């Protein structure tokens, strides 16, 4: 409703002379029709958000809780060094005597006397940087290739489909480990490795969405009017596939975080002493008989993040009407 009113006002401004001077929006039937058309155009051009506020209201409170959790983790990752917590790599000698929680170490210490809370909070940096950065890279690579393959089809599409299929069919962790062996395991290396493994998923999703949208009437009409491929791709198809790319990208972030966690757990992600959720879980699982906090704290942290971001992706997919079909 709100969008329509806004659109009416703006089109009113555009068509200022004529009956509109009376100051009554939608004075004549023709004016309303023009308004409606303009509103449609504007929605398509992205001037007005395509999703109405009412649809966002239907997201439910659970969605906003999930957004708050993800937002909190992002803030923690950015401002971890400003928080009133000890240095994650400093050893507290008192803590070596008793690793149980105390006022100075809320979650206790690990077996080498480092503060668990600080390590969990700092550990979010590795997970979140790798999760978001690798998916951002694969969004760009997979998205662009998916748009091109879905729009032009032909041999480009076939070659890319074969490449992405062979990436997707092979066991994820084996490929990741092989690449760690050949490339290395700095933060940058791991981000790149996960991006290389993740782009085929986004490629397939964007390609499928592009194929679906490219057959719609307004695209065919624009092409019939003689629009260049570049214009069709950037101003019609790109906005259409963004909801698909974003919702699947969010799920991709969760998958990337779990993937990094798996590598970390095997001790083959970012090297020690940097804290990661995965290497903390690995450390915690060796000492779980004596101290459960070291295992549970990073596990709960990772679980809360992946569950929240999965939930956001899932709800958005419902609201933005992204279809699973034709993948």
């Amino acid at each position, binding site marked *: 409703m709100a969008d329509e009113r806004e659109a009416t006002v703006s089109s009113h401004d555009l068509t200022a002379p004529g009956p509109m001077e009376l100051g009554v929006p939608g004075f004549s039937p023709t004016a309303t029709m023009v308004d409606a058309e303009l509103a449609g155009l504007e929605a398509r051009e992205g001037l007005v958000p395509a999703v109405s506020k009412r649809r966002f209201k239907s997201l439910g409170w659970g969605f906003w809780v999930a957004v708050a959790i993800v937002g909190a983790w992002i803030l923690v990752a950015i401002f971890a060094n400003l928080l009133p917590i000890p240095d994650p790599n400093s050893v507290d000698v008192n803590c070596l005597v008793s690793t149980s929680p105390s006022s100075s170490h809320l979650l206790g210490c690990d077996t080498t006397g480092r503060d668990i809370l600080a390590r969990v909070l700092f550990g979010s940096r590795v997970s979140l940087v790798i999760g978001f950065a690798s998916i951002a890279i694969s969004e760009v690579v997979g998205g662009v290739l998916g748009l091109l393959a879905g729009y032009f089809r032909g041999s480009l599409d076939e070659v890319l489909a074969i490449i992405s299929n062979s990436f997707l069919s092979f*066991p994820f962790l084996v490929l990741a480990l092989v690449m760690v062996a*050949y490339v290395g395991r700095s933060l940058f290396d791991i981000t790149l490795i996960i991006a290389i493994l993740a782009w085929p998923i986004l490629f397939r999703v964007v390609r499928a969405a592009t194929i679906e949208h490219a057959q719609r009437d307004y695209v065919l009409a624009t092409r019939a009017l003689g629009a260049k491929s570049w214009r069709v791709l950037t101003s019609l198809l790109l906005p259409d596939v963004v909801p698909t790319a974003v919702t699947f990208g969010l799920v991709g972030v969760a998958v990337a975080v779990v993937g990094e966690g798996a590598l970390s757990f095997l001790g083959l992600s970012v090297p020690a002493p940097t804290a990661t959720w995965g290497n903390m879980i690995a450390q915690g699982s060796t000492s779980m008989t004596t101290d459960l906090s070291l295992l549970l704290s990073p596990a709960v942290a990772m679980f809360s993040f992946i569950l929240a971001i999965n939930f956001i992706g899932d709800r958005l997919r419902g609201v933005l009407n992204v279809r699973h079909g034709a993948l």
Partner: protein
Amino acid sequence: MVAARRILEGLATVLLVCFVTFFFTSKMPGSEAAVICGPAGTACVRHESAILYLNHPFFERFFHWLGELLQGNLGVTLAPPEPIGSVIAGAYPITLELIIYSQVIAVVVAIPVAMWSALRANGLFDRLSTTATFATLAIPVFIVGPLLALVFTVKLPWFPGPAANVPSLWSDPGQNLYVMFLPSLTLAIGSIAVYQRLLRADMVATLEEDFIVMARAKGLSTARILFRHALRPSTFTTMTVAGIQVGSLITGAIIVETVFALHGLGSVLTAAVAAKDLPTVQAVTIVVAVFYIVCNVLIDFLYTVIDPRVRRGRRA
């Protein structure tokens, strides 16, 4: 015909994996010879290079290596030098057993749960089991594994803890299956969730078919209807997904082996990556690729056995 094509495709993939890993291994700085010799000096490097065929052009080396591979010579691990073939031969039974055992557990659990859920769709049991599977799908194996180990080896000492000695399946099957149960269950959890959901959905659809109504009208017992009439036509989606699952099972097996300190292919690969032992990484990757492709061809074959429509459709 279809099987032949699948096998050819599989061979092409294996060849590609061989070529890519060989290419990258050969491009790595520091030759294998230098690693084997350590500080022993240039004479040693020259000697080892000759043995390893390192002085020849790239393609000549590739085909020489491929020829050795086809004769079963997978090369030698770096420090300590051992034939990779025997390392893999010692490790693969654990991984294979883990994967097969987990699938047996998954099927044994998923089929009854899915049937019971489908029989009373949207009932209490259905909603409970669906929620439970949704939750288990979200937890990564490396969190489930340690927690299961904690509960069932420490709090309730029903099973031997990680690093338990695993006797051979052939010499002491009972003890072997007992020790391997918890690791296999850990790996099975993801599969149970996937199979339960797919099987339930298909089963709900099958139970509305005419032939089920007919079977009911004939007065057959519910158990007979479920197992003899409804099960087979409900398994097609699950079968297809089982094929896709093999990849994630291998991924899961690597982690489970680390959690339970089992000496399988996954731990060989992990150790080789940590030590930058590229020949071993290369060999394990190729073995995994072959295994993966063999599994997929087998499942394709199984599919035609279970679904007569596919069999006839493909022949026509």
